């Protein structure tokens, strides 16, 4: 099309130009010609006219002269007849208008004339009478005629005049004729010229068309090629052939095309690159518009969620993602948070969601980019870790209990072994000839003692490592302690003939530390020194130093014993490390002493170090703060598996109780019981701590045990009243003791009254087993819930329809419709999607299942090995949280 148009236009333009040029030239020429010819004609006519005029003039003159001569005799002789005859002869001539003969007085002899003309002639020719005297020939013109008068002379005397009036009309005719002839010629010339110019024009026109077509072709071919090229580029083929010819501007155009194609190629590569990135990335990416609807999604999104592009585009993004505080997530320009994505099949996918703002683009309307990562495995791992951690905490707790029990259990038979063997040694010694038996019994005794030592050490170490070792603060004189310990090791010193010197700084002030532990540490190191030295010296040096404003005690114990090799020195504080097994046999000891000593020193805020030269001796240095620092801030005394602790429920919920009891066991029991009822519990065994906690946390109520109320330390009630922050907090007496058997209806009622918000809450228990249902029901009622029951998922769904509960406690294994199915149905219904669900099940749940379930349920509690009681306790704690959440949601 372009080709045609361009060519045609070009051709037509060229043609028009040519035609115009040639046409105007022709017209110009022809005009010029005709004008010039016309002028020439006029000029020639004029010339001819002139010439003819002259001619006629002469003729007139000649005629008049000739006539004058001819008539001379006639006039002289007054022969009028011959005069007339001669004159008539001339008058016959057509071209003669008039002849007149006059005498010299002007008397007319003859006039042969066209009638009426004589007078005119005469009038015009002879104005003055005097003229007649004139002897010359006079010729005058008058309109359309020439008049000539010649004198008739005889012997020089004028006897008359002859007048001849010659008509000039023929001239006119002649001229007109000639002019006509000329005009015709001109006309012919013009016609010829016209034809010629048409011919030339056509010729040129034809040439022009050919030229135009040719040029047009030349012109349009590159344009055509370029447009083909443009189409190719549009299709994505960026290779440009170099062979496009064309002058000047065409070349520029070609160059531009090259550069454009190159740019496009780069852009396409970039775009392809970006597309690769976008669709190759593992995380899901969505571009969301200003209106909150999805604009673009990447492949990973489709893969992760199970929808395709079409199903997602245009949908509101909030239909697919759920995260805490999602609204604020969208308002802030950049945020990341954990959340849940809804898959097509209804499952929840745990994701890490990050939303970033894009530069506003009015063309696309894009406003934010949502990137989400599947953290199912992370969550699973997290849950597994949490479970493992809880398990290890339980195990640790169990272990500590075990150790505490074992301590007693282990010692009791050992006491028997040690006691009886000792006794039998005495008895055997009394018997005659039983030294062998005595010795044997002694060995039993020694072994018993050794075993006891081991047990003590192992239990000590375990206690320290479990963090169960208590630290006492005593103020005492260090010298006294050292002297006492020295006295205790004296037998050991004497055994190997060693001497002990104590060099103590004389002005040593009393220190504040744990006396028992310091004695134990000193005893350990001194007994080691005594054990590994023979015939040697042991020196104990005590000094104080000031480090950065605090006093520190340095106790150095130097012996001249066997020393340690560098290897041995490196491992000396390790557990069960003695120099080697032979050393154990030779020197006895448990191998735990130094490990315990080091840990104890660290507990006191100090450090032990050792140095040694093999064969020469060893030096142990104990460094301690002179004043032991206060123990760290109070942690809640119990940590039940529910993880209901201070941080969890928080001051916001207000469901915290502060329990104070000086008896740690009682405190523990009370706290557990209360937590089991769904309260958040903080405990304190000292009034100072308690007051501080009361101020900080402002619990709903403070429960004081008898011991707290009556001891002189507790002006607790009055102190609480004095402080405006805590004055309003109700103080309730804690029944003593709080043991498992009692129901404590009273206390529960009192407490429940303080938390009126738990009224009007309906919990739906979905459980097929009647006993379990009763158990759960009771526990929930205790925590203030109204109860509805269903024995399977189907039943539950029906009940929900009549009233939507505030909480659903769900078992998994049920007939008709099991827990998992129920959950799916529940979550797919927009009306019920926000009801919190707590799964309480006997079915063991793997970490993966837990993750999957956790996206539809708030808590998953397994009955586990500890039975229902434990599970119910856990539930109690979780219920506390549920109530708070529901309260928060209601804004109550």
């Amino acid at each position: 099309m372009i080709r045609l148009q361009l060519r045609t236009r070009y051709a037509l333009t060229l043609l028009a130009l040519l035609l115009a040029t040639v046409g105007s030239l022709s017209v110009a020429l022809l005009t010029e010609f005709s004008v010039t010819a016309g002028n020439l004609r006029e000029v020639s006519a004029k010339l001819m006219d002139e010439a003819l005029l002259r001619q006629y003039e002469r003729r007139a003159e000649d005629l008049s002269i000739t006539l004058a001569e001819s008539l001379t005799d006639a006039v002289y002789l007054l022969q009028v007849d011959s005069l007339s005859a001669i004159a008539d002869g001339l008058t016959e001539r057509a071209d003669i208008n008039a002849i007149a003969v006059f005498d010299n007085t002007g008397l007319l002899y003859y006039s042969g004339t066209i009638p009426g003309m004589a007078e005119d002639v005469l009038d015009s020719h002879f104005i003055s009478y005097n003229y007649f005297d004139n002897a010359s020939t006079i010729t005058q013109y008058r309109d359309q005629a020439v008049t000539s008068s010649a004198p008739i002379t005889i012997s020089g005397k004028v006897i008359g005049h002859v007048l001849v009036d010659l008509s000039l009309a023929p001239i006119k005719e002649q001229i007109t004729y000639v002019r006509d002839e000329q005009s015709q010629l001109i006309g012919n010339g013009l016609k010829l010229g016209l034809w010629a110019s048409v011919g030339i024009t056509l010729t040129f026109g034809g040439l022009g068309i050919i030229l135009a077509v040719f040029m047009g072709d030349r012109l349009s071919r590159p344009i055509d090629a370029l447009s083909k090229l443009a189409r190719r580029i549009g299709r994505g083929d960026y290779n440009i052939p170099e062979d496009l010819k064309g002058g000047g501007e065409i070349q520029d155009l070609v160059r531009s095309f090259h550069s454009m194609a190159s740019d496009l190629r780069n852009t396409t590569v970039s775009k392809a690159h970006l597309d690769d990135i976008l669709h190759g990335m593992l995380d899901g990416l969505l571009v969301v518009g200003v209106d909150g609807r999805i604009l673009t999604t990447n492949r990973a999104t489709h893969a992760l969620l199970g929808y395709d592009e079409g199903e997602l585009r245009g949908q509101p993004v909030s239909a697919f993602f759920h995260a805490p505080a999602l609204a604020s997530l969208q308002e802030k320009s950049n945020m990341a948070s954990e959340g849940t994505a809804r898959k097509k099949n209804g499952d929840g996918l745990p994701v890490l969601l990050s939303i970033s703002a894009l530069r506003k683009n009015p063309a696309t309307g894009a406003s934010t980019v949502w990137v989400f990562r599947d953290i199912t495995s992370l969550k699973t791992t997290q849950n597994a870790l949490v479970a493992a951690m809880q398990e290890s905490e339980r195990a640790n707790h169990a272990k500590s209990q075990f150790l505490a029990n074992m301590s007693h259990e282990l010692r009791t038979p050992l006491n028997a072994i040690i006691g009886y063997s000792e006794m039998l040694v005495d008895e055997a010694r009394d018997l005659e000839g039983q030294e062998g038996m005595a010795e044997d019994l002694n060995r039993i005794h020694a072994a018993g003692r050794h075993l006891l030592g081991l047990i003590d050490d192992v239990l000590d170490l375990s206690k320290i490592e479990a963090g169960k070792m208590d630290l006492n603060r005593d103020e005492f004189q260090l010298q006294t302690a050292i002297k006492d310990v020295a006295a205790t090791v004296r037998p050991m010193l004497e055994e190997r003939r060693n001497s002990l010197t104590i060099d103590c700084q004389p002005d040593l002030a009393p220190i504040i530390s744990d006396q028992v532990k310091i004695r134990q540490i000193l005893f350990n190191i001194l007994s080691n020194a005594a054990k590994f030295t023979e015939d040697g010296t042991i020196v104990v040096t005590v000094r104080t130093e000031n480090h950065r404003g605090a006093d520190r005690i340095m106790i150095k114990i130097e012996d001249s014993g066997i020393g340690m090799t560098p290897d041995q020195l490196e491992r000396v504080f390790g557990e069960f490390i003695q120099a080697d097994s032979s050393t154990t046999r030779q020197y006895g000891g448990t191998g735990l002493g130094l490990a315990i000593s080091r840990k104890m020193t660290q507990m006191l805020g100090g450090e032990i170090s050792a140095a040694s030269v093999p064969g020469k001796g060893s030096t142990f240095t104990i460094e301690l703060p002179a004043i032991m620092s206060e123990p760290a801030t109070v942690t809640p005394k119990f940590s039940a598996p529910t993880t209901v602790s201070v941080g969890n429920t928080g001051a916001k919920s207000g469901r915290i109780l502060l329990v104070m009891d000086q008896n740690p066991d009682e405190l523990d029991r009370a706290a557990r019981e209360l937590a089991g009822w769904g309260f958040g519990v903080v405990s304190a065994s000292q009034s100072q701590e308690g007051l501080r906690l009361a101020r900080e946390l402002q619990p709903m109520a403070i429960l004081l045990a008898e011991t707290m109320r009556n001891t002189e330390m507790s002006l607790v009630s009055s102190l609480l009243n004095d402080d405006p922050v805590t004055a309003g907090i109700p103080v309730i007496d804690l029944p003593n003791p709080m043991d498992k058997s009692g129901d404590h209806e009273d206390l529960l009622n009192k407490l429940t009254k303080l938390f009126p918000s738990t009224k009007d809450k309906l919990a739906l228990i979905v459980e097929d087993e009647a006993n379990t249902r009763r158990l759960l029901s009771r526990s929930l009622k205790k925590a203030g819930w109204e109860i509805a029951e269903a024995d399977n998922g189907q039943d539950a769904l029906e009940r929900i329809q009549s009233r939507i509960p505030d909480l659903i406690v769900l078992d998994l294994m049920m007939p008709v419709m099991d827990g998992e199915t129920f959950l799916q149905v529940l979550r797919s219904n927009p009306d019920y999607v926000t009801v919190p669900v707590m799964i309480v099940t006997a079915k063991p749940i793997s970490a993966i299942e837990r993750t999957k379930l956790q996206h539809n349920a708030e808590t998953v509690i397994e009955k586990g090995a500890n039975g229902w009681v434990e599970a119910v306790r856990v539930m109690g704690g979780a219920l506390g949280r549920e109530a708070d959440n529901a309260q928060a949601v209601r804004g109550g």
Partner: protein
Amino acid sequence: MKRILVVEDNEMNRDMLCRRLARKGFTILTAADGEQGINVAMAEMPDVIIMDLSLPRIDGWEACRRLKANQSTSAIPVIALTAHAMSTDKDKALAAGCDDFDTKPVDFARLLEKIEKASSGK
């Protein structure tokens, strides 16, 4: 001949202690729980009472308290024995009125010293 009342619920411990003390020349009286201990003490008026603190029926602390509260028995020195060596136990024992305190397993020699001290202090 000094008379010692041993209040100890554990049979082996009781047996060991009694035999060893008997060999040292003491006359031994026994009780297996706190209540019995109080009864025997009131009936027999021993010179020293060695009382294990963890006893059934009435525990050692309570028994000690009662003995000290009773005019007739208040003068009898009581040496408390316990497997726990925590300072709180010590304090508790002394608060209950015990005159001395020792830990289990018993260092017999030390115990003899304490018995000596307690009974001579009369």
